[in-house]
């Protein structure tokens, strides 16, 4: 049993709108990541993936507010800390975050090594500039990034290179958890592969100890992460290992997601691409029962009234549905 790097218990965070309505975008989410493992979070737009990422950092800005739950990083509880404490003691060293358009985060008037100086000095103001530059150089060499990019401005780099540079900058202090929020969605397939290779290298060399990878591209998650969680309307609806989730999804929603996979492999053209009808529910007034019931073709009337807990099965796996695993498997088999 390896060490648990990040443990989240019943995390609930909400947005307060200007009309003082509460929108629970992350609703009782629990997760656990061990050292050297990566976790993928999948789901459609607006299901709370990015809010979960922001909440995990413990860095709350209005309209996002913390409600309840614990975030424990390597034995240290960071929930309920003040934003200033979080910035000084948690971000960068414990958790690092890469947003989707990370490449736009670079100030065009400064050179790349200046950003690295900023990151290091924010945590240790006494650090000598020469040591920082040496550290940056050795890190860039190890990650296979060209050294001359350190002395360039952001506009001189290509999109994929900028993204990789930002990842290198944000992980310079060897954070325990890296949250990558769609780091490759804005890139083409070739640059995407370079970014993924770099993330994998960082895991292997121990620059980051664990990773949360958020995306809606399932083939990518399957190749990058060890475990996958599927999120719907602020809740986790299913979790399991990458292989189980892609080839044997249990929850009707995960199954719908897996149907939208597109890969250039034989037989894909005959495969009918199926979209899930309808739109996600409005989280201002979440449905009473199962949140997916409106769009689910297997829903029965009781689905709309009984609120559902996460049910564990087959060891580590879990799902949130009113039907039993056996029933759902039989239904799927019958369909095929």
């Amino acid at each position, binding site marked *: 049993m390896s060490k648990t790097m990040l443990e989240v218990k019943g995390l609930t965070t909400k947005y307060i709108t200007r009309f003082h309505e509460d929108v629970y975008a992350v609703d009782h989410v629990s997760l656990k990541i061990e050292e050297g493992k990566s976790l993928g979070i999948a789901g459609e737009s607006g299901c709370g993936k990015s809010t979960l990422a922001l909440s995990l950092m413990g860095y709350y800005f209005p309209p996002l507010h913390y409600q309840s739950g614990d975030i424990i990083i390597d034995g240290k509880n960071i929930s309920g800390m003040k934003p200033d404490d979080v910035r000084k003691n948690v971000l960068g060293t414990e958790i690092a975050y890469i947003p989707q358009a990370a490449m736009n985060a670079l100030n065009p008037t400064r050179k790349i090594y200046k950003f690295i100086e900023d990151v290091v000095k924010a945590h240790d103001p006494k650090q000598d500039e020469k040591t920082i530059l040496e550290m940056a150089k050795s890190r860039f060499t190890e990650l296979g990034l060209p050294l001359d990019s350190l002395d360039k401005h952001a506009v001189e780099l290509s999109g994929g290179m900028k993204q990789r540079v930002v990842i290198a900058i944000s992980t310079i202090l060897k954070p325990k958890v890296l949250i990558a929020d769609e780091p490759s969605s804005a890139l083409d*397939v070739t640059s995407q592969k370079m970014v993924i290779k770099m993330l994998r290298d960082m895991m292997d060399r121990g620059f980051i100890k664990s990773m949360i990878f958020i995306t809606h591209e399932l083939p990518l998650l399957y190749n990058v992460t060890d475990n996958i969680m599927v999120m719907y309307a602020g809740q986790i609806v299913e979790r399991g290992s990458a292989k189980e989730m892609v080839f044997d999804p249990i929850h009707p929603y995960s199954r719908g*997601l897996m149907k939208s996979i597109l890969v250039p492999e034989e037989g894909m*053209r005959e495969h009918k691409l199926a979209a899930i009808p309808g739109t996600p529910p409005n989280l201002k007034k979440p449905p009473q029962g199962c949140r997916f019931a409106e769009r689910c073709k297997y829903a029965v009337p009781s689905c709309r009234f009984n609120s559902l807990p996460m049910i564990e099965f087959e060891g580590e796996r879990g799902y949130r549905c009113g039907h039993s695993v056996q029933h759902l498997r039989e239904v799927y088999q019958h369909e095929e």
Partner: protein
Amino acid sequence: MRNEDISSRPLCLSGRGVTKIFTTGKTRTVAVDHVDFEFHEGELISIVGESGSGKTTLSKMLLGLLNITEGEILFQGQPRDISNMHKRREYWRGIQAIFQDPFSSFNVFNKIDTVLLDCINMRGGKRLPMEKKIEMMTEACSFVNLKFAELTNKYPFELSGGQMQRLMIARIFLLKPKILLADEPTSMIDACSRATILDMLLQLRDEVGMTIIFITHDIGLAYYISDSVYIMEHGKFVESGSADDVILNPKAAYTKRLISDVPKIYEPWDLNTVAQ
């Protein structure tokens, strides 16, 4: 529906030696380099390449938004004439486009009714009674699974990305151009909505008989949707042919690399073959 006899259909759009050279000062950048293509009626063509391979420059030339440095484009067998604005408008009745970013495709000051009404007016339906127009708009919206009654009096920015992209297709449905050029229409929306958009494009091809030119960097997407595929590298077509030929038996090294770069699920994905 994959027809075998596509090559026997009349040509819709074809080009010979189409070239675009950008000149800034003394540097000359060849963005598109002597490409030849033949697009048949009712065919779904994908143009695949990385960023910077000249896909978008080619698409702008096809749309008549950029002048061609060399070569010629034939529209329905006749040399295309877009020498003045009037003729250009005439040409645009035959070719329309969907762009990558749904959020910047609409005029922010126009309500959705106005967007759709403009399309009806452009097709010469200006004199139609209002009831008929509403009926047409409702039909177009139901084609893309939107409810027209919910959209009236809304502005485009009140919709989600997927809904906006579907509204864009509703416009195309009303305009019924001969050719639809879709420049990465699904790269900014998530995988679920993507399936809906792709299905709608296939429906446009099968029911309306539109020629669709689909520009993408995702070869998996191209394989799923298209009849024929053109692979573009540094402004040149390195490989072309039917989707099955090109993607299941690639010949050019570039095509092989593009295919190896896409994450797969049934075969292992080798990260060590990454280009530097």
